[in-house]
């Protein structure tokens, strides 16, 4: 296991601009969710092959994603990192490196030269498990899975002391045909109708407290424990971690217009179950 991807939070302090005259710009503080790439080796070929594997599991998640590079494990192991080819590699893989944390003074200099910010603080939590949702399980990806799991346990033990809330996206407006909403790194709650031709996507769970007539995809980065809850089932398609079901004609009578939950059972079967009687 050489690289670990985790979601962390970067904080920016609020800055105020006096409002006497019309300003050319506004400065506002904001909190972003960033992917943290924790390096366990300085071997670029190893990093490349493992990173490619991870990206293949959730291409949409990683496309043009800003990442922070965490070199703490390298420091512990007394390893150096050649920054410029590493950054070139990230860019080739369509990631956008934005900063470094836990860098040694020479690494800090190299990072600054490469145009990266030096990041401080930021709690870290694990991304949902990265298991491939497609059944093409060759030896390599099986190995990757085991290591991910091992590491996850390690991580969980670590994070017990400082739990970080998941990021939940809440939508109050109807989601209409042709629109797509993606809750990256967390759950999605929708309080208005999701109409036919609309698509809602989340890395975590999806809740719809209104009619669901469009497509709903939960756990898109591979979380098989993700669920979809909806108050009035009429979806065109539902999917959990890539296991999907299309309702070509209509939703079966037993669950149509009912409150249901949708999840994967132990044998990876997609279950649609009425809720609350």
């Amino acid at each position: 296991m050489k690289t670990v991807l985790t979601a962390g939070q970067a904080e920016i302090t609020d800055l105020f601009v006096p409002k006497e005259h019309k300003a050319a710009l506004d400065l506002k503080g904001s909190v972003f969710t960033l992917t943290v790439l924790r390096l366990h080796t300085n071997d670029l070929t190893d990093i490349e092959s493992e990173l490619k594997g991870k990206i293949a599991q959730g291409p949409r998640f990683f496309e043009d994603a800003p990442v922070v590079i965490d070199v703490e494990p390298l420091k512990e192991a007394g390893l150096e990192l050649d920054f410029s080819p590493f950054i070139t590699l990230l860019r080739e893989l369509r990631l956008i490196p934005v900063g470094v944390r836990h860098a040694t003074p020479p690494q800090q200099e190299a990072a600054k030269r490469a145009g990266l910010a030096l990041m401080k603080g930021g709690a870290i939590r694990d991304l949902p498990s990265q298991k491939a949702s497609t059944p093409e399980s060759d030896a390599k990806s099986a190995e990757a899975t085991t290591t991910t799991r091992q590491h996850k346990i390690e991580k969980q033990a670590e994070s017990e002391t400082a739990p970080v809330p998941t990021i939940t996206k809440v939508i109050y407006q109807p989601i209409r045909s042709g629109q797509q909403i993606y809750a990256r790194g967390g759950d999605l709650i929708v309080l208005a109708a999701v109409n036919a031709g609309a698509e809602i996507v989340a890395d975590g769970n999806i809740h719809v407290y209104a009619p669901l007539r469009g497509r709903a995809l939960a756990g898109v980065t591979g979380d098989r424990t993700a669920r979809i809850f909806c108050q009035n089932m009429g979806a065109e398609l539902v999917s959990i971690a890539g296991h999907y079901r299309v309702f070509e004609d209509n939703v079966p009578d037993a669950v149509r217009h009912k409150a249901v939950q949708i999840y994967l059972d132990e044998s990876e079967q997609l279950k649609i179950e009425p809720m609350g009687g």
Partner: protein
Amino acid sequence: MAKVIVVTSGKGGVGKTTTSASVASGLAQRGKKTVVIDFDIGLRNLDLILGCERRVVYDFVNVIQKEASLKQALIRDKHCDTLSILPASQTRDKEALTREGVGEVLEELKQTFDYIVCDSPAGIERGAVMALYYADEALVVTNPEVSSVRDSDRILGILSAKSKRAEEGQETPIKEHLLVTRYSPKRASLGEMLSITDVQELLGIPLVGVIPESESVLQASNAGVPVIHDQTSPSGQAYQDVVARLLGESRPMRFLEEEKKGFLSRLFGT
């Protein structure tokens, strides 16, 4: 303050131009200084329905490209002198509609008029987006059938994402009105058409009116007189109600039920 109303639908042939002509005429009849703009570049239609096609000299694109002044291009309606028409060009391509160009023309019109009605082309491309971009209110024209409802839903999504009010995050979004046209109570009761409740439930925006399917609409457009001027036509009366509601009056919905045939017509079987 002048109000910009876009008449839009996504789907083609649902009655946008018919609605633009009648609503604009109705507002003008009630003393509001009104201008109706044809955004359907390449497919002029509005001037035909308003019966002024032979008086078109300059058009919207000429004004945008500063080849003519607004004064030269605006046509005064022959039925109602508070109504003007800004016709579309039949020859130019749609690229001529630029956001800045349209914005400038609308600003100038706002100096003179109370209402600016924009007749949108079908689709969700440039022309349709230009027509809705500056809108304060939207009349979403929908026929009671699944594909038309789906397209209206799409347009509502665009109104809430790509309009000026949405892009600037203005406090009051575009005021949306649902207008169901070509409604046939008989076919709805037979289940051949969606009911008004179905359409309303699917789109989730307030209903401003229901225009029944009627032959008088076609006759009116052939004659170049918007159907709202036909007091005997149920469609004309329904458009009168729509205009009243847009101006804040409340009126009960009419023409939702099948007309009961009178004793005489039953007797003579007409």
